[in-house]
């Protein structure tokens, strides 16, 4: 077959270009640190990378949701605990007030005053807010769960929940009636009655004490409920943290280069390129001219 210098040069040039192209591609991967810089680099990898990124965003958001859920539950827990303490004080005072023989009118008045002020404290605790929302108000758009008279002004509706994973939502709120008993027979109404009856009708106090105990049991149940929900949220937080780590490494695996491997390949490609260069130089240089006198 007849071969000309230009034909040799053409094929050599194509080989060199291909080599240089491969070197350039590896160089680009190394400098950008990314294996996939366009969908065509790996269509399936692109799909996985996009999906993983979207999952990562979801996971980060769920972490925020979890933090928010935890603060709701913690606030609720602390409010309920404080209210329990106050209610215990009310109970002590009631017991004290029901021992009618041992006290004067003045001390009964003092008990009544203290119980009244404790009731104010209970109401203000029950109206504690988080981000402007009353903790025990359900879905009310207002700022209070109970008004000054102790009537529930919250709004019943769907529970307030936080999405803690793709599939799970955790309820974070506790409505007033759930925690403090039904309207009319709730904690505040009972305490109000105690404050009145401790002066006017101490004999009724025994009945109120029973009611108070049962309402306090309800509050305790609510505390336990909040605690178990908090435990669940914490478990989900752990799961989410693990998932976020897995997703990061998954994305890195899909999208990022394997550094030693890429450097190795670049080195090999460079050796190949240099070999091609020297082969081309050898093939193109000599002509018959070199051997003619």
């Amino acid at each position, binding site marked *: *077959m*007849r*071969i*000309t*210098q*230009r*034909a*040799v040069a*053409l*094929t050599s040039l*194509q080989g060199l270009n291909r080599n240089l192209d491969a070197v350039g591609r590896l160089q680009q991967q190394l400098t950008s640190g990314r294996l*996939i810089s*366009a*969908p*065509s*680099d*790996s*269509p*399936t990898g*692109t*799909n996985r*990378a*996009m*999906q993983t*990124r*979207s999952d990562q*965003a*979801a996971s*980060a*958001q*769920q972490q*925020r*949701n979890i933090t*928010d859920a935890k603060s709701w539950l913690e606030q609720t827990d602390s409010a309920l605990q404080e209210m329990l303490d106050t209610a215990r004080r009310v109970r002590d005072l009631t017991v004290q007030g029901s021992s009618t023989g041992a006290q004067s009118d003045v001390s009964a008045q003092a008990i009544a005053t203290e119980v009244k002020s404790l009731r104010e404290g209970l109401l203000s605790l029950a109206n504690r807010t988080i*981000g*402007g*929302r009353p903790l025990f108000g359900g*879905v*009310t*758009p*207002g700022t209070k769960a109970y008004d000054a008279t102790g009537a529930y002004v919250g*709004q*019943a*509706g*769907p529970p*307030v*929940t*936080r*999405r803690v994973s*793709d599939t799970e*939502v955790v309820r974070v709120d506790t409505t007033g009636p759930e925690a403090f008993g039904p309207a009319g027979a709730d904690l505040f109404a009972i305490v109000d009655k105690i404050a009145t009856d401790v002066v006017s009708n101490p004999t009724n106090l025994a009945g109120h004490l029973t009611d108070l105990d049962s309402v306090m049991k309800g509050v305790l149940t609510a505390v336990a409920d909040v605690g178990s929900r908090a435990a669940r949220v914490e478990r989900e937080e752990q799961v989410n943290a693990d998932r976020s780590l897995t997703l990061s490494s998954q994305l890195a695996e899909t*999208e990022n280069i394997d550094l030693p491997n890429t450097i190795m390949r670049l080195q090999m490609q460079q050796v190949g390129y240099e070999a091609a260069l020297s082969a081309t130089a050898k093939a193109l240089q000599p*002509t*018959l*001219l070199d051997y*003619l006198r």
Partner: protein
Amino acid sequence: MSTFGSLNAATTALWAQRRALDVTGQNIANVNTEGYSRQRVELRSIGGSVVPAFFSTSNGLGGGVNADEVTRIRDAFLEGRGHTEHANSSRLTVENETFELVEQAFREPGDTGIQSLLSEMWSGWEDVANQPQDEAARGQVLKRLETLVGGIHFSQASLGAQWTQSRESLDVLVADVNASASSIADLNQAIQRANQSGLPANDLSDQRDLLVMKLADQVGATVRHGDNGVVDVLVGGMTLVSGSTAASLATAGTYSVDGVTADPPRIVTGSGGYTVRAGGTAEGQLNSLNTIIPSYRQALDATAVSLATSLNTAHAAGFDLNGAAGTPLLGSSGGPITAASLTVLVTDPKKVAASSVGPTAGVPALDHGNADAIAQLRRSTTGTDANYRKMIVELGVQAAVAGRNVDIQAVITTQVDSARESVAGVNIDEEMTNMLSFQHAYSAAGRLITAIDETLDKLINGTGRVGL
């Protein structure tokens, strides 16, 4: 044979070898000239008289050598193959470039692509779900929605800009093709005249063939050989150059990306306006203009419509901070919803319908059920995200195939080119060898003249002088 016959033969030899050396020189000079075909002097011995007559008989010996004809060495079949492969190569290159630009328009995978804007927007809904009373969270989700819409607009606009650019370069291409065609016609005429008057037209032919190859690249031209070294150039079955007359091509069709279906861009004959099936770069550009770019614009339109439909449907199921049912979130700034006309309709953060329950006795509920439901749209297997991802994967596959095709075609084209070069190109070794043979032949012819000269000298000056 006459006394001086052999002198004449030696002269023709000297002349012929000189000519051959000249041609060798021309070959060497053009070893790197693109499109140059090597030339060869056709040496023919001059025979004796063919028709014997009574008084003029030939002794059968020849009268030297004839070196009138210089031929151009070129393989017409390989040239034809070269035209085809060059056209394919140009077409695939343009298509591959188009795919690369489309990929750039979508900026995937990455933090700036539509997918990540979508993710941020969905996350924003969960923020609203966490803080339904907070107008800042509500405002943020609207801003994120606007950023997403902006991202969709941007991708659509870059596809549109790419289309416009391709459309303009098609016009430039056709103008260039017409100029080349008329040059070919002129060259054809010159070649025809030269051939008719027996002059060599090899270099003109080389120039013309180079232009033909350029046309093969640009519009997939093929040739039909005619008499006197003239070629006709055909594009998609239509004669572009016939002998010394050139027809012209023109572009037709819309200059607006939105008018592609109604009036697709195409190449037509300059007179008559008949559609021409062009190949090469033009075919690649037409494919980009009529198929590739519009299909991704449509896909983006579909994404916009699906986003608007799913968001609006979900939003309508909820109630805003005032207790009113959700109004459409996304709409069009005019005409049907497309990726370009998509716009956010809700601007008041209060109007974000986060609640899944309506007002009770006139008091709106501060619920977050609907915001959460909207945020979950991201996981729908038939939703915007899934469909968008599917489109990007499809783009990736097509772009990868286009890239591979270009690579394969590049190998084939280079092989054909080097085969053409093997036939038509100059081999320096060969020219050196030829040069030596011609040089030696020239010296030998010179010696012959000296020998005859000496013989004649003996005859003229030495004869009849015996004993002097």
